């Protein structure tokens, strides 16, 4: 999953990448594994600049899904930092670029939440509920958004 040039570029552009190896960095693996509750490999965490976990990927994913989840993690960090505009842009980019990934319905959901958090205008929530009537209808995220349909 890591040799993909799109993944490499996204990681280098958006994160400070760190790795602890279960054998080669065993002391660090134990230390940070306990700190962050990582009990399996691969476990990949998106941490905000204060070191707080904002997103977690456990287990292997094919390249497109992996990149979509990395993008989702980066979007969640922007969301946690209350950068609503940037978060929405990042969530929508996932839906546009990887519409068939399993990260896309979750991204569509949060793309509706981010502008609401910034404005308190429920229009984006209603629009998201409507969007879920057209796509991803059978996902958990569509069920969660259904309450916004009014």
């Amino acid at each position, binding site marked *: 999953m890591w040799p993909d040039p799109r993944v490499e570029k996204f990681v280098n552009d958006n994160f400070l990448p760190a790795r602890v190896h279960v054998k080669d960095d065993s002391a660090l693996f134990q230390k940070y594994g306990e700190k962050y509750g990582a009990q399996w*490999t691969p476990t990949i965490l998106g941490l905000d600049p204060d070191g707080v976990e904002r997103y977690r990927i456990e287990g292997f994913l094919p390249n497109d899904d992996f990149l979509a989840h990395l993008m989702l993690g980066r979007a969640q960090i922007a969301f946690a930092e209350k950068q609503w505009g940037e978060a929405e842009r990042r969530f929508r980019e996932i839906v546009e670029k990887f519409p068939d990934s399993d990260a896309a319905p979750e991204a569509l959901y949060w793309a509706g939440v981010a502008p609401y958090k910034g404005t308190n205008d429920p229009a984006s929530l209603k629009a998201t509920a409507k969007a879920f009537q057209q796509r991803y209808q059978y996902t958990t995220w569509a069920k969660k958004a259904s309450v916004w349909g009014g």
Partner: protein
Amino acid sequence: MAIKFRHDVDAVLAEAKKTGKPVLLDFSAAPM
């Protein structure tokens, strides 16, 4: 453009706090 993973996690976390850049922390068992 290979990813230059660092293993000095404490230093990476300190740099993140200083620069405001997020961290990707990979717990791996892949061959190094």
